[in-house]
């Protein structure tokens, strides 16, 4: 078990370093970032001057080393466009996005687990097909479209909820909740539909297993046999998908944060891309990718805890 933990931790750390190298290579290594920053009409002198100011005249390895070691201390550099430190921006905005992602994930799970199970238990019946069809349509709806529809209904037509804005939860918890309901639903409903299909498929797999047949032959109903014996096994493949979903929601937040004017890391990324603020994009993308890798690491660990067979490998 301890060796498994160390091995997975090492894989996570190496993956994070390699990913940071790739991001650095794309944004700082290929071409001249100073020229990208100044535009194609810039003179060679201006590019050379900015290159020197940005430290781009140093060897690439040295540039990477300085940037990467800075990251370890929370120093993401200073934006060449906004002239403000990037690190505090990322940490402040990441907190905002965390609220968004967690709320959306909770909604997705609240939808997916009961609907996925119900859909599997009603497999072959009309209600099962209806649930399955609804999840198929849900998967096809982009989050930004869901946001459009929700705003039109709950903000414009009914006037129940604000169409945009963000308030720090500590400042006004009530207003925070009111403002976050639509963004949570926009991301959560769509991801809930995706997750429903995986829960259904996973539960269907387990329902065909001998141990569940035995449980039912002892008098348990399909539902109670599943809840008592099957859920733990059905959770294993679903866990992987939840990990992927978390990352998808995190990245999907880019669009939803734009629509609802939420000052999260997604809108910071979209704005930085618009401004071609390469150093900021570099810092944001590396943060998101390391979070994605860390989620994957946690999912691996959760596997080991849920499935005893993996502990012995």
């Amino acid at each position, binding site marked *: 078990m301890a060796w498994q933990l160390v091995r997975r931790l090492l894989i996570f750390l190496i993956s994070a370093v390699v990913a940071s190298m790739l991001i650095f290579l794309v944004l700082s290594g290929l071409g001249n970032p100073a020229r*990208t920053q100044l535009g194609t009409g810039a003179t060679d002198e201006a590019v050379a001057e900015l290159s020197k100011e940005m430290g781009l005249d140093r060897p690439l390895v040295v540039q990477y080393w300085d940037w990467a070691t800075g990251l370890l201390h929370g120093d993401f550099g200073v934006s060449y466009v906004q002239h403000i430190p990037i690190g505090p921006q990322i940490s402040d905005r990441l907190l905002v996005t965390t609220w968004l992602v967690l709320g959306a994930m909770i909604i997705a799970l609240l939808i997916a687990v009961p609907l996925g199970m119900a859909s599997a238990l009603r497999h072959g019946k009309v209600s099962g097909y209806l649930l399955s069809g609804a999840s198929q349509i849900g998967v096809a709806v982009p989050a930004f479209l869901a946001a459009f529809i929700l705003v039109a209904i709950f903000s414009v*037509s009914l006037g129940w909820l604000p169409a945009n804005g963000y308030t720090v939860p500590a400042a006004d918890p009530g207003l925070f909740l009111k403002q976050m309901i639509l963004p949570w639903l926009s991301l959560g409903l769509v991801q809930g539909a995706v997750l429903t299909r995986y829960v259904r498929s996973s539960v269907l797999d387990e329902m065909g297993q001998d141990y569940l047949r035995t449980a039912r032959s002892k008098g348990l109903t399909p539902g109670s046999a599943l809840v008592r014996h099957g859920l733990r096994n059905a959770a294993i493949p679903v866990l992987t998908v939840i990990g992927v979903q978390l990352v998808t929601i995190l990245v999907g937040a880019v669009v939803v944060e734009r629509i609802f004017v939420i000052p999260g890391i997604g809108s910071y990324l979209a704005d930085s*891309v618009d401004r071609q603020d390469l150093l900021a994009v570099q810092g944001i993308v590396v943060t998101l990718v390391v979070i*994605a*890798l860390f989620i*994957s690491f946690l999912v691996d660990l959760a596997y080991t805890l849920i499935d005893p067979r993996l502990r012995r490998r």
Partner: protein
Amino acid sequence: MTAVQPVPPPTEPAAPAVLGPAPTGSRHRVSPLLYIGGAIVGLIVLVALVSFFWTPFDPLYTDVVNRHAPPGTAGHLLGTDMRGRDIASLLMEGARTTLYVGIVSVGIAALIGTPIGIIAGMTRPGASEFIMRATDILLAFPALLMALLFAAKWGGSVTTAMIAIGIATVPAFIRVIRSGTLQVMSADYVLAARVAGRRGTAIAAHHVLPNVLGLVIVQASVGYAIAILAEAALSYLGLGAGPTTPSWGRMLYEGQSGWPTYPLVSLWPALAIILAVLGFNLLGDGLRDRFDPRLAGRS
């Protein structure tokens, strides 16, 4: 080596079921999902093809007199947008952009992912582990994130989006194809070919590739749906198709200025996106049922 004939795939149930079409017959009917998905995708392809030769109006022609015209006005079947452009014509040419983005991005992913997946499934465990760890790293870059990364560096355009989405879809192909390759490699006919002295490349070309082709098609269909969603999101952010390239995502982006006073301007491209993603997802599910009899009826 020419004397060695490829051993035909065994017909007993032990054959890798995942990799070949399901047997025909009453017990293995073609999934209705395949028909529904195929019909939707076929319709979109047809509309895109027709748009090469004919559209009701020039999609980029702006008719300021007829701005926000309701459906049926002056020959505008679905009405006009905020610039008086014909929505039906924009949708038709938008279908072309959607298919173009999907074909190129899925093509990139399949061309890179399939051979790497086969190599990962056939090579030594250490090398295979290395490929899969590299794949895991690439998996941490979802299509939208990769596209934003590329847009920051090279500017937002359909081309940048297609390449980025394609690269981000490669890991999914590698994983699926590796899994299929491992199944083929454990089959008796591959063992026979190896005992007969056939080289790895010959086994890959004659035994593995034909048997994992079904998986490639299924994954391509799923990847297509992802590409459509990613392109729509990018165009919505203003980082995909430019103003002169009709695109469903761009139509939504432009339609939001009139939302919700003129909902139809956004509704049509929204429906088109949902229908296209639904079509490709259903097609993928139907194909999966077709190529994996064990899953028939699950979707």
